[in-house]
Structures are given as structure tokens and as C-alpha cells.
């Protein structure tokens, strides 16, 4: 099992870029496998820094650690705008970006007031497919209910013209079916601050939709730093196989926070 951390980029106090850089180097030096941003939803709730710009600060001073956006709300931004931002982040990170999709209903204060009304999941999935076209095709083409284009060149594409590994924030069975039908099975499944029972139930939903293929889906469990020791203790009794345990830190991690993640 791998260990990582998820960080808020809260702007409390001076020297924020330096503090992020210091923590990022420490996390990589300590051997952590991953650094995740909070999701768009949490960043909006806590009014913390933009997750993509925060992750760029981490990318700038690290070489190895995997960088994850833990909750991309594909429903709230135009596909071409977002594809450019995520591809650029991946370029700065030398191909280390992984993308967690949050396909739940977006919070009201992030919904684009200028966008026509639409089913949020329908629009999000259309945009996911549009972004994939932009990321993998030299002259991209996409025709959907919400996004359409043809003959588009959008460079840089993610390193290797790949679709960054895509994880799904845990979803209900019906939504998960729609997701799998339209954009395929995810690389990973993100259990965001769930109890061991909820994690098990999520894995069961995934298996009910994907069947045996669910075994190949990576399971990442996010728990608050304060609960990390309890979570570790619970692992052996859980029905689900957790591939990665991620400590959620509600600030730019201090050296002490990183020590606590490593020691747990």
C-alpha cells in the first residue's frame, strides 16, 4: 500500500509559495507516493487557493511524487479552457498529473451563470470526452450535446499525448453506470473522507457495475490526518483492498504534519 497526502492551499499568513515549496520538497524527500490537492468543491467551501495553481507550486520543486487533483468538477468549466489548464499543469509536472473526477452536483457558487441549464452529469461527461479528444488527437474532433468542435489543435497536450490517469470520486450505482457507459471504467476510485464501512460499500457498488474488472481499479482512501492512525488500524478488518491511504491536511502541511503522515 502507498501513502500520500492531500493538502488544502489555504492562504493563511505570508510566504505562501515558499511554504508550499518547502512542504512539497519535504513530502518527496520523506518518500510519500502522492500529493493531492483538495477538490474544487472543498476549495470553494474553505475559500482556499485554486487547486491547479497550488499543484503547480508543488510540481515546480519536485521530480517524482505523483500529483493528483482530487476533485475536478467537469461540470463547471468549458472543456477547452480546462483541457488547456490541466495539460499545462501536466507539462509543468513532467507527466505526473492524475485526475480525480467529482461528478456530483456542483456547488451553486461554482456553477457558471452564463452556461445554459443542463443536467450536470450529462454536461460533465460530454466535457470529459471532449477533453480526451483535445489531449490525444493532433486535429481534435468532438461532437456532443454540449461541446462540439472539429480540426482543433490544442498544444501542449499532456505528456505522451495521453489521458492522465482518471480516478472517480465515489458515486452511487446509477450514476456510476452512466459514467462507465459513456466514458469507460476509471483507473481509480477515490473514497473521500469515508468510514471503513462506506469504503467497503463503495467497493461493492464498483464491483456490481464493473464485475471482475473492479479488481483492476485502484482504491484510494482519503482520511483526515487526525484519523490516520485509526484508519491504518482498521485496514486489516476491511472487506475492500485499499491501494493508497492519503492523509488530508487542512492547510499547507508543516514539517510536523509530514512527519505524522510518515510515522503513521
Amino acid at each position, binding site marked *: 500500500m502507498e501513502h500520500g497526502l492531500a493538502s488544502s*492551499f*489555504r*492562504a*493563511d*499568513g505570508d510566504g*505562501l*509559495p515558499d511554504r508550499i515549496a518547502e512542504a512539497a520538497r519535504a513530502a518527496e524527500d520523506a518518500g510519500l507516493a502522492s500529493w493531492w490537492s483538495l477538490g*474544487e468543491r472543498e*476549495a*470553494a467551501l*474553505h*475559500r*482556499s*487557493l*485554486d487547486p*491547479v*495553481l*497550488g499543484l*503547480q*507550486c508543488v510540481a*515546480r520543486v519536485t521530480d517524482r511524487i505523483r500529483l493528483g487533483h482530487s476533485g475536478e468538477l467537469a461540470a*463547471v*468549466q*468549458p*472543456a*477547452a*479552457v480546462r483541457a*488547456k*489548464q490541466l*495539460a*499545462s*499543469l501536466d*507539462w*509543468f509536472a513532467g507527466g505526473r498529473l492524475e485526475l480525480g473526477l467529482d461528478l456530483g452536483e456542483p456547488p451553486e*457558487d*461554482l*456553477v*457558471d*451563470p*452564463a*452556461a445554459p441549464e443542463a443536467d450536470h452529469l450529462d454536461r460533465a461527461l460530454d466535457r470529459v470526452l471532449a477533453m480526451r479528444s*483535445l489531449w490525444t488527437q*493532433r*486535429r481534435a474532433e468532438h461532437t456532443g450535446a*454540449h*461541446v*462540439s*468542435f472539429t*480540426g*482543433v*489543435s*490544442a*498544444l*501542449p497536450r499532456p505528456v505522451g499525448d495521453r489521458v492522465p490517469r482518471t480516478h472517480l470520486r465515489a458515486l452511487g450505482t446509477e450514476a456510476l453506470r452512466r459514467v462507465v457507459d459513456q466514458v469507460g471504467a476509471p483507473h481509480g476510485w477515490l473514497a473521500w473522507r469515508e468510514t471503513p464501512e462506506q469504503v467497503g460499500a463503495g467497493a461493492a457498488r464498483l464491483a456490481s457495475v464493473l464485475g471482475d474488472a473492479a479488481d483492476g481499479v485502484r482504491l484510494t482512501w482519503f482520511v483526515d490526518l487526525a484519523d490516520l492512525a485509526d484508519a491504518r488500524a482498521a485496514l486489516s478488518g476491511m472487506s475492500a483492498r485499499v491501494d493508497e491511504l492519503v492523509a488530508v491536511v487542512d492547510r499547507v502541511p508543516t514539517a510536523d504534519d509530514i512527519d505524522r503522515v510518515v510515522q503513521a
Partner: protein
Amino acid sequence: MTNGDGVEIGLVDLFDGGVRRDPAFMATFARTAEQLGFSGIWVPEHLMFFDHYESAYPYPNHPSADDPDKLESHNKTVGDKAQVEAAEDQGLLDVQQTAAELCAATTRLRVGASVMILPVRNMRTLHRELQSLAELTGGRFDLGVGVGWSSEEVTACESDFRTRGRRCTDYLADLAGGWGSAVSGVDRPAPRTLIAGHSPAALKRAASVGTGWYPYNLTISEFTEHHATYTRLLEDNGRDRADQHAVAGVRYTGDLAGLRQFVDRYAEAGADGVNISLRLGDDDYAETMAEVSDILGLAR
């Protein structure tokens, strides 16, 4: 930093997300510009390119280096349509991440969008991005704003082309009115907001909701004429021209020795800053920057 006449000199250049202009190149490029006394680096934005455009590129001519009252053409045309000056398979990194990267390598240099296509954005997420960027750059980001000239691009970004101007004005008013509410614990002023273009709508927008004006490739007489309109519109709105920032953007392809006189003409016509697009080379940009800095007397 400004030249002897107090004019801010910016460089318009681009970072394409390719192999050659990697993050280390970007950092050295930015430090070199800063050390040589340039005020800022200004980066263009396109979310995408097309092989051919039905929309005509609006800036195919630029003022002549020998006589900035005359225009010369530098862009290719297809049929009678001017096309944007871009390489085949042209890349452009995200403007805001580019700004964050260049500012992380420097302490004084400003970085501007030249220009951001505002009407295709979700203003709520953009507000958070801009406030984050203000914090990460120490307030060194300037928001050049355009409405987009390519209907192909605006439409592919899920936006209505016809109403983009109105959206742009509304967004800027919202941004100014609500600035600071997206990220807590950050106390940075809103970026300087410079409106691109010289159409009546652009001038009206600049004079009402911008904090500056950023026309591109105008001759001296055009600049003078539109600057007078801009100043009058500001007065009509009860705003003081001295509080605003007018930057003349120009593509310059002539002999560098002529730059001093060229820049002075725009300063005399009322520009607070001149942004020069030289399309600097990967291998000789430092020499060119040094020569320009010397000619314009930028380094102290």
C-alpha cells in the same frame, strides 16, 4: 522599470509548452528580462488553433519601424482573409500558470496576459484563479482582456460569439465589484485590467470597467485618435485618465536601432507603456534583450 521618459517597456513573447522552452528556460528568460530592466513579459492566449479560419485575424498589419505612421503587413492570408501569425502545431501554455512560473523566478518583473479571452470563462472559477495568482505572484499579474476574434475558437469553448462583448463587460464589472471574496486570507488588489482593441465597444468597455487600455498595432495617428476618444469617455464616466494605464502593443520587425524613436512616438502620443513583440529566438534572446535594453536605456 521604465525608460528615461517613464514609459514601461514590456516584451510580448510566448511559451509553447515544447521541449526547448522548458521551465528552466522560462526561469532564465524571465530573470534576464528583469535584470535588463524590462517592466514585464506579456503572453498571448489561445485555447486552440485551427489550420484555417473563416474569421479574419484583426491585426495583420503593424506600424512600420521606419515610420510608425505607416502600416506594413506581416501575416499570411488565405483568400482575402488574414490569418493569425502562428507556427504549424503552435503550442501555448495556460496564461496563468505561465505567469506563476515566470514570477516564481523573479522578484519585480510583471507578467501580463496579452490577452485573455475573457467571455469564454466561468467567471466564478476565474475569480478564484485570479485571486490565487495575485497571491502567488505578489500582485505582479496584469490582466489584458480581449473578447476573442475567432468565432471558431469562441464557439468551440461552448460560448455564444455574438454576445461575447456584453458578457465581457458584465464579467469585468462583477470582478471589480466582488473582488476578494473567492479566496480568504488574501489581501491583494485586483489586477490591472487592460482592455484590448480600439473598436467603439472596446473603448467604451475600457473607459467604464477597465483600469487600462491595450490597443495592438495602431499607427501613431490611430493611437492618438483613439486615445483621445478613450480619454473623453473616461471623463464622461467621471474617471481620471491619470489613474488608468494605457499600453500600446506593437509587433516590431525593423532594425532595433530605430526602437528608441519608435517608442518615444507612442509615449508622446500618450502611452504609459509600450509592449514590443520581437519574437525572440531561443538561442539569442539574451543578446537581443540586452541590445534593446541598451537602446532604450532600461538598465540602471
